[in-house]
């Protein structure tokens, strides 16, 4: 716990610094390159403001809308932000509690077939609204972000054995919902968002929630080199029942979120480096999806949007040059392409040397 408390103090300070920096009127060029942004929009955004998950039957979800809004802020593209926000508000922000319905399908009626939310989508949307409101002096966006942050704080944060943690959704993962509940998902902690949420809705323990996520990740990585996605935290953290115990598509975002948030202390930086190394296939540089029980590699992902995740950590922390083919953006599928753009944006902001 000592380490976690230290990390919390440090990170809060760093997080705020990052937030304030990004909130200042952007004098420099946008961190998402216009050319790459145009390509992303052409591939994954329709005219109605819907971000299309091309790897998933063309459905949409709150996570995609949140990523779209965040990328629009990073691209300083108000037009696209307005478009995505209009869709998000009218089609997903329909829940009584002010959170976003998580799933939207163009081929079903009603489009929203599951009223549950997904906390990573909620956080991404609120975070992007907060940043846009500040960057563009738009009180209406700030207010919308504040309302969502308030709802997230009220419905999605909880305490477990002294730690503040994040529910994956408002319903379905608690102690009363499943025998091994509460269950959390480490990849739902969008660490960079927490300082912004704290400004939007100061009445909740956002610093505690951020620290709780980091501490939980640290404890998991103390036991193995890769984190599982769905964790039961009822007792000692362990893979949740009913989910494959694997390092999978969700979890591979964890290093990106850590990298984008703020550098932690030495121990955390070491953990991040180890994680990046462990997820990389040493021969090909592909990202490995791993069965955690056997340690066997289940899949090797070669899409540049995946490969850049550990490569960016290696460059940012260890100076390992980024392979050239990862420096350029070209659309493939929604998920890796989105991660690709977010990684490139971070490198451009914080480690421009990696892109030269």
């Amino acid at each position: 716990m000592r380490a976690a408390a230290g990390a919390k103090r440090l990170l809060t300070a760093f997080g705020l610094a990052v937030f304030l920096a990004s909130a200042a009127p952007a004098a420099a060029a946008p961190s998402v390159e216009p050319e790459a942004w145009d390509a992303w929009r052409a591939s994954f955004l329709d005219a109605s403001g819907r971000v299309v998950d091309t790897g998933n039957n063309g459905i949409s979800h709150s996570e995609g809308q949140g990523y779209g809004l965040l990328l629009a802020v990073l691209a300083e593209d108000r037009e696209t932000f307005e478009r995505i926000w209009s869709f998000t508000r009218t089609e997903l922000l329909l829940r009584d509690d002010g959170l976003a319905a998580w799933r939207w399908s163009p081929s079903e009626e009603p489009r929203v077939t599951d009223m549950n939310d997904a906390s990573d989508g909620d956080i991404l949307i609120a975070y992007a609204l907060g940043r846009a409101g500040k960057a563009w002096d738009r009180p209406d966006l700030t207010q919308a972000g504040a309302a969502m942050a308030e709802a997230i704080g009220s419905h999605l944060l909880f305490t477990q054995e002294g730690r503040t943690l994040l529910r994956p959704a408002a319903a379905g993962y608690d102690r009363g919902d499943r025998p091994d509940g509460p269950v959390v998902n480490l990849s739902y902690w969008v660490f960079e968002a927490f300082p912004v949420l704290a400004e939007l809705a100061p009445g909740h323990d956002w610093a505690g929630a951020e620290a709780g996520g980091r501490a939980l990740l640290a404890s998991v990585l103390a036991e193995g080199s890769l984190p599982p996605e769905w964790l039961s935290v009822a007792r000692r953290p362990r893979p949740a029942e009913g989910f494959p115990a694997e390092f999978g598509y969700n979890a591979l975002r964890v290093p990106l979120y850590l990298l984008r948030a703020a550098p932690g202390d030495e121990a955390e930086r070491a953990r991040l480096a180890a994680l990046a190394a462990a997820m990389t296939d040493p021969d090909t540089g592909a990202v490995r999806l791993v069965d955690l029980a056997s340690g066997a590699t289940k899949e090797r992902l070669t899409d540049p949007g995946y490969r850049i995740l550990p490569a960016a950590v290696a460059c940012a922390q260890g100076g390992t040059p980024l392979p050239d083919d990862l420096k350029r953006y070209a659309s493939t599928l929604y998920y890796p392409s989105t991660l690709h753009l977010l990684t490139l944006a971070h490198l451009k902001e914080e480690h421009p040397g990696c892109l030269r």
Partner: protein
Amino acid sequence: MSALTKTTTIGLAAGFALVLQGSASAADAAPTHWNAASGPATIVAAATVEPFSATLAQAPAPAAPQPAPAPPAAPEAGAPESPPAARPPAVDETALRYFARQGDTRRLEAEIARLKALYPDWQPPENPLEIEDAGDPELDRVWELYSQGRYAEVRAAIAARQASEPGWQPPADLLDRLAVAEARVQLVNASNLQQWQAVIRVASATPSLLTCSEVDVLWRVARAFIETGRPDRGRDAYLYVLTQCSNDAERLATMQMATQRLPRAELDPLLATERTGSDGVGEFASIRADLARASLAEAADDAAATVAPADLDTVKRLADAEGRPSDNELLGWYALRRADYPEALARFERARAAEDSSTVSQGTALALIQLARFAEAESAMVPWREASDGARAVYLAAVANLLAAPGGATIDQAVLARAVDAAAKARDAATAQQIGWYAFSLNQFPTAAQWFATALAWKADDEPAAFGLALARQRLGDAGGLAALQREWSARSPRIAAIGREDGVGLAADAAGAGLAQAEAPRARQAAATETPARPRAVLRERAAAASPARAPRADRSAGASGRSCPEEIDPYTLSAQAALARGWCLLDLDRSLLAAAAFNSAVRRGAGAVRQDAAYGESLAYLRLGLVDRAALAAAASPQPAARRRELDVAVLTDRATSAYEAKRPVETLQALDERSRLAPERIDLLILRGFAYLDLRRYGDAEQVFSAVARTGNVEGARGLNAVRQATGRIRSNY
């Protein structure tokens, strides 16, 4: 332009905003705001009310009517060059022009209504096409996107133009309309997903959405209020439509929705807004009719429910004017539940004449049963007796009553065949037992024994059937069979144990009476659904049972009684005593008790010895059957009777005394007669019930409970009903039975 003038009137309505304001912001602190007068006056004031809440409002809620509302979002950090000076301090009519040019009448009207709500002094232009063209084709394209419902693209286009043309401000009107349109989409989506809080949140933030041009939205908001436990606010939303909006179809639909979602009491203020058409018919006539039917239908299932006289009149008027079978049937059930059997029968018969159905026939049969017209009841149910379990039960009730009917009327062979068939199909022990008693009364003892045995096979603990079987075996001389039955039942049934013993004669004579009383069981089963205060029913029928001791002895002597006519009707006093006696028995068999009494009396006067004795007996039986207990007693005293017969008559007289006293609400005398009777004969179950209710009337709850418990243990429904009455009386339960 007629459309224009129409919308102008609509536009005078300022929107439903106040209602929402009252609900969400001022809240309960200022109930006067909106509870006191939910009339149009308060609602019109709405346009000047502050927007619901600043914290969540992304929509530019129209605030106080100002010449040029500022755009909600100041899109550029840099100060605007100057306020759009070209615009007069008036209403932005760009949208009007655009919609008029597109020929988009619906949106044109909606826009006029909206502007009118915002700016009460504003007059819509005579011809929106003549509004000065700003000459801005780019803006026209944006309006086109808007009118196609592509709101995200409108947002994007505005942002794009602001980026390419620094200082450009979109028309405030466009931003207003856009916010309202997006709010509408969000509200409709939330409503479709039953997120009622979200519906109210969006509506509260967007008061100008709530006008007559968006009645669908008002409906959704009304429902959201009702679903979240605020029916009064839901009602006010409907009331807003009904007081402010004039589209006939929408008004009717509003009223229909209100009837589906609100309790009847909340509907009256809504119905009061009814407008009368040029034909003199109120626009809600059909709804009023349906409401009246619904309240009648509810009352038809619940005898305790009261129906407003106006509702009853409405349905009667409709039934008489239009003759719909369903209306007449409804009235039939209503009357049946309220024991108005002639009215019920008349209504059911009218319905049946128009269109027969299983339920109408059941109603008809139940009314006929209550009117003691059992043969007609049976016949009404013949076509429907297999239609459903309920129909079969009604049919069997008719059959049971028919079989048990007093008067010894012979039942038509076809009817009997149907009854036998139905009993067999339904494996109905009660009907089987009834057929047994019927056969027994015709001295067909082997047949009777068969049916009693069948009843026992279908219902092993059917004591009356066992009793019947025992009696039949006794009559058949089957001593072994009787003894076997007595071994099996003596512990449970004293009367079975008593058969064949010295003191068992009276019991045997009681046999047909037991059968009659038992006929109440199927009937009571039916009656349970049709009448709540069922207690007098069994008692009334008891009068017939009281006369039945005659059957056993009569069976001995009236072999010819199955002929359907008696010796010619001549003055009984000219007959010989013997002939008068025979005629008396014959008439009694035909249930013509008064004539029978006269014949017996003639025989008593002129006869002697056994003839006189028999005639006195017959006369007292005839009077008993007529309910003239005292004369019966008198007649019995005219000639000394053998002890057994003496006792039969005494039992019958006392039974009738008990019954009459109870009906006259004299419980003490009831109990006296019952006590006296119980010294002569074991108390039958129906008399036990009577005793229970007498105790209940005297507030001897402990005794009543004891008696009803004993009755209930025999499986008789009256026992449970009596226990329930005791509990109700002692306040242990509150529900109606």
